[in-house]
């Protein structure tokens, strides 16, 4: 198994994504990229965007859901896609500097990122989780 990645897994009505990575920040990045892949985002490569996201420190699962829900919001409301992330741990917050592109179009709407059976599991190679998206 490569040390990080994502794959869509079977879900009857919604979408589910299995994600694995060596560390938590890489798991967040892979989750974002996997989610964008399921959405089918077309970027406008000539229109760069930046954003700093500040998330309250919480359990890993809560940070993961908060992070992805922020990206869903930025996609739907601001038509922005991000694929470069720098994480800075602060005392009570996680600050994430993000770079990406304006979005030309996307194929699928994600209503929300759910907590359904969400657990970030430690494996010998790193971390793994399965995220369910309501669509």
């Amino acid at each position: 198994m490569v040390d990080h990645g994502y794959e869509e897994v079977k879900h009857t009505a919604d979408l589910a994504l299995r994600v694995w990575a060596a560390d938590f920040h890489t798991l967040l990045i892979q989750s974002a990229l996997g989610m964008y892949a399921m959405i089918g985002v077309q970027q406008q490569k000539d229109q760069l965007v930046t954003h700093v996201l500040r998330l309250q420190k919480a359990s890993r699962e809560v940070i993961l859901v908060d992070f992805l829900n922020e990206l869903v919001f930025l996609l739907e409301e601001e038509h922005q896609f991000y694929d470069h992330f720098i994480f800075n741990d602060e005392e009570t917050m996680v600050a994430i500097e993000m770079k990406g592109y304006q979005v030309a179009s996307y194929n699928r709407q994600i209503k929300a990122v759910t907590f359904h059976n969400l657990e970030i599991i430690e494996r010998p190679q790193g971390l793994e989780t399965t995220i369910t998206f309501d669509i």
Partner: protein
Amino acid sequence: MSKISLNIFKRISDFEWEISPDFRSDMRVPVRFFASRRLLEESLDDKSIEQAINASTLPGLVGTVMVMPDMHQGYGFPIGGVAATDPVDGVISPGGIGYDINCGVRLLAARISLPEVEPWLKGLATMLNQNCPSGVGVGSDLRLSESQLAEACMLGARWAKKHGYATEADLRHTEENGCLRGANPEKLSKRALQRGRSQLGTLGAGNHFIEVDLVAEVFDPEAAQRMGLQKAYIAVQIHTGSRGFGHQICTDYVRRFQPAIHKYGIKLPDKQLVCAPIESPEGQDYLGAMRCGANFAFLNRQLITDRVRMTFEDVLAGKVDDWHLKLVYDLAHNIGKFEKHLVHGEKREVCIHRKGATRAFGPYSEGIPEEYADIGQPVLVPGSMGTSSWVLTGTKASMERSFGSSCHGAGRVMSRSQAKREVWGEDLLKRLEKSGIEIRAGSMPGLAEEAPEAYKDVDQVVESVVGAGIAKKVVRLTPLIVIKG
């Protein structure tokens, strides 16, 4: 816990099955399934039964958790789930209502026969698609200020009446007259308001649709006549919900409730079932916000109705005798409400969670319009694209056995990726057009995901609720035009 198999169910009748609370140590009440043996067996393939068992662990449940025959795997609750909690000792669970708060369906009856409309179907399909905003990322041409949106959340479909988009009869024929009392816009986040402002009057994508149907078969002529439905005449269904506004409300409160369960000492098998006591500040805030989402959805369907009526007039005026559309009924299938129901023979108020299930009030129940009092509330069951849809009525038995609830649709059996692997959108489009259905779809992969074979047989679902006695057949509809985002 034993493995989930048919052996764990006690057969009550051919269409009712129950899992005892002894099955798993954290279950608080039994779980009852309304389904034929075949549909129940098919449900063993996904996680819907396990999710229903999980829902039976919520604190303060009364009676039994019910599951309808269109059940399928969701997140937290199964789709097709109905649960009632005690207003004093019980909880409210945003996941038991869903992200698309008050996703629902409405049916409009026309006095237009098939031969009259047939020459104009193509044009009607094109204009409906053009006039009713739909599809991924498509916003509304109606931009409300925050204060206007707050007012719309308080008034629901009444906001449409105030601004000339609805009639008094429309409101009377909408569940709760199109407005849940107790909506509190102060409990909405800035972000929810931002998403709501640009999405009112839009259909969205996924399984949302506008469909022009033919009344193909009449089973209860008296009830059909009362609803204005006549064999070989047409009708229109609109299926949508609260859009990004509702999604954001649910997201906000599922997040806020994560620490709340520890505060109230609630243990749950799944984080998506998070809940808070109804009487707690968190519970009350969610109720105030959720009702805003529900009212937004009632209004959203009413505004789309206005566009559909306008389109019928544009395309058909002067070509058919009467192009007006009368609202038969509008109902929610993702909602939380306080209703009075029989619990162990005693009528009491409970907080009903319906997630992918509709209200199905029987004859002479409180809250149904006078003209339907003796026949029961219309129950709308849209099928999958290209198959039948059904109009049913609630019964005395639904009031006694299912908290006045019934099924909401066909229910998926195939994942979206499997549907896309097995069905080509272009092939499906040709197949449906060959069978005489006009399709207007936002995307071919999206169309493939909604292929009829990805869903259960809606006729089997309806046979189950009718067999169980919790609904009665009125008419069967078949599609002529399908508009999908």
